[in-house]
């Protein structure tokens, strides 16, 4: 069965690009427009992986990661954050909240897939 990946990003164009890339690679994708939306959608399903932006309205990426790690079904799943900051502090804050890894924007579709394959068991 196809693995389900949830993406959370407030930018429609990034959502579209990430969603399309993942679907092309055979994953099924749930899209969320911000952290709160993602938390709501996670409560009903259990995604195999989450890819989240950090700067989002309502609940931001760091808050989302914390909330997800508190859900039993998301405790051990890989969570990747999308960040424009190459600076370390955001990365560290994300890691401290329980993120698995990160992708620095801008990125190419292949780079996205490489990271997904790195952390998500086929």
């Amino acid at each position: 069965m196809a693995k389900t990946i949830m993406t959370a990003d407030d930018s429609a164009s990034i959502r579209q690009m990430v969603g399309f890339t993942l679907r092309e690679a055979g994953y099924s994708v749930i899209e969320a427009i911000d952290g709160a939306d993602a938390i709501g959608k996670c409560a009903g399903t259990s995604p195999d992986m989450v890819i989240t932006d950090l700067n989002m309205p309502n609940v931001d990426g760091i808050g989302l990661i914390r909330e997800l790690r508190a859900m039993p079904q998301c405790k051990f799943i890989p969570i990747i954050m999308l960040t424009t900051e190459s600076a370390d502090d955001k990365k560290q804050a994300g890691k401290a909240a329980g993120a698995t890894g990160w992708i620095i924007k801008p990125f190419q579709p292949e780079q996205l897939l490489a990271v997904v394959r790195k952390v998500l068991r086929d």
Partner: protein
Amino acid sequence: MGETDRYIETFRMEADELLADVEDIVLAIEDDPSNRSNIDRLFRAMHTIKGSGAMFGFDDVAAFTHHVETTLDVVRSGGIGIGRELIDLILAARDQITAMMAAAGGGPVVDEGESRRIVEGLGALLPKGDSLKAEEAGGSSSGGDAGVVGDASAEMASYKIVFAPDPGIFLTGMDPSLLLEELRELGECQIIALTENLPALEMVDPEKCYLAWQINLRTDKGVDAIRDVFIFVEDTSRIEIEQLPELQVSASDDEPKKLGQILVEKGLATEAQVRGALGKQKMLGDILVGSGVVGAETLNSALAEQKTQEKAKGAEKSETLRVASDKLDVLVNLVGELVINQARLSQVSGAVENSELLAAVEEVERLTGELRDVVLNIRMMPIGTTFGRFKRLVRDTSVELGKEIDLVTEGAETEIDKTVIDRLADPLVHLIRNSIDHAIESPEARLGMGKPRKGTILLSAAHRGTNVVITVKDDGKGLDAEVIKAKAIERGLISADQDLSEKEIFALIFAPGFSTAQNVTSMSGRGVGMDVVRREIDALRGNVSVTSEKGKGTTVDLSLPLTLAIIDGLLVAVNNERFVIPLSTVEECLELTGARFAMSRERNVIQVRGEPVPFVRLREMFGIEGTEPDLEETIVVGVGESRIGIVVDHVIGDHQTVIKSLGKAYRHVEGLSGATIMGDGSVALILDVPGLVDCALQAEDAALKAA
């Protein structure tokens, strides 16, 4: 529209909306500078324009917006107040971004002076210490460092890697085994788990990772590729990567001579004496472990490392010794006797109830088992030794018949008991001749069918469980089920109304007296059909199966046990008689009451989980006296696709069975394949399971017809 164009289109719409928002938000901020949520929204809008812009190729937009974002970040944290000047600059910046978006879409070129003026203006607002550094802009296309694209190739090198993840690694969603797999993909890899930090079982927290790994890796991908594997965990885990020096393959002349060598050369000691003395030496590792310098785990990992290095050196020297095979046969026989005697010893000591004796007997049991494995292993030979002769066979025969055929062999290194290899040669010759004679078409016929001119016969061997499967596969014309069926009916092998599956029909070619060949060649088709193959494989306790696709080719699989000398058996009893069923054929044991049999008494069939399984009663089959107990046991055995039940009085247990042949007089007894001697000296007969299966299926067919 390409996918990229579609993203750009979406981004344009998104940017338009955001820029419209920015205008509204800025005006709202001017009215009420204390509303923090508006400032956050403004920051996010700029952040999205920057981030998404960079993603879809709007590098200038991203670079410019970065400055605005940086300033807003400082505003957000209270570093600068909101004033008229700031509001003006942000509105100007918003207009400038709108112009840049338009320019990218084919509009008029933007005034770069204006961009510079805005950036400088924003910079001037920042408190000292914060400055707008152009190189931090997220717009540079080289910034897409996802950390996993390392394709720089380097020289082949060996690395020693220690990876000790943080105990909480699972809570970051990272599975360390994925990283180990990733390392495996880089090159030849040897992974040793270091278990020193593993606490006692009751102390283990299942959500924590206590393991560390040492990985010896040979790769040409370079050290950066290795670092990239660990990029997400390098902050929290202990990771050591050390390049091992490449071993110099130095000429032995350069090395100083060893002490022993010198002594022997000078005649001061014999080689045997030196070897004896060396044997008394403790291994370095043992000494170090003994004195507590290193832990056993650490030592093992170091030894594994040594192994990798030895491999790198390419030194695979193995000394061999030629021994006459009859000497080995004697050895195997002796081991067989030893196994029997050991069983007897265990039985006797069990009755004595002396714990000191029991301990010693258990030790003997363990050693006997080891000895048995080692001795049987000595008899194992790579099957490739027989493959060689077939090359010649195929060449000569195909020339004679005017055909062009390649023999491809695979798995020549697969090891199998020498006796099996010897007895396998004839059936294989038969199968291969059959493929050459009847299956592979003439070159002209092949070309006409769109096949390559040259035919191919694949001869392969592989281990599958406790069996070796030898496959003879050709790309010839395949078997025609209709023709075979017609022939079988003509020969009276089956009746015309029998409903057979394709597999069953193909199996008919192994029936005695069956041959589909149109012509008789000098090699085959002399009336000796494939039944010879079947008989020989049966005698080896093996199994034959055929698959074929008309026009495409035929595949014959021979499945054979690894050894013939000693097998694991299931010991069962009927009255006072004991029988051994080869354990490899046993699927399950069932207890069936008399009442349940009564229901099926007319037809020897029982239901096993809804499936009908025919059965045979050993008591009836071998005419054993006595009455059956109320609770009989049924052992379900399987050969290929067929399953039958064997009904016995009771199951005793598993038994190391040393196979003894029955002798000429009993060779043709149906249902028995040999005998073994029990611990108490009595004899148990070994059941011929394929024979019994045939028996039961035939009986069932006959019963069906009679009904």
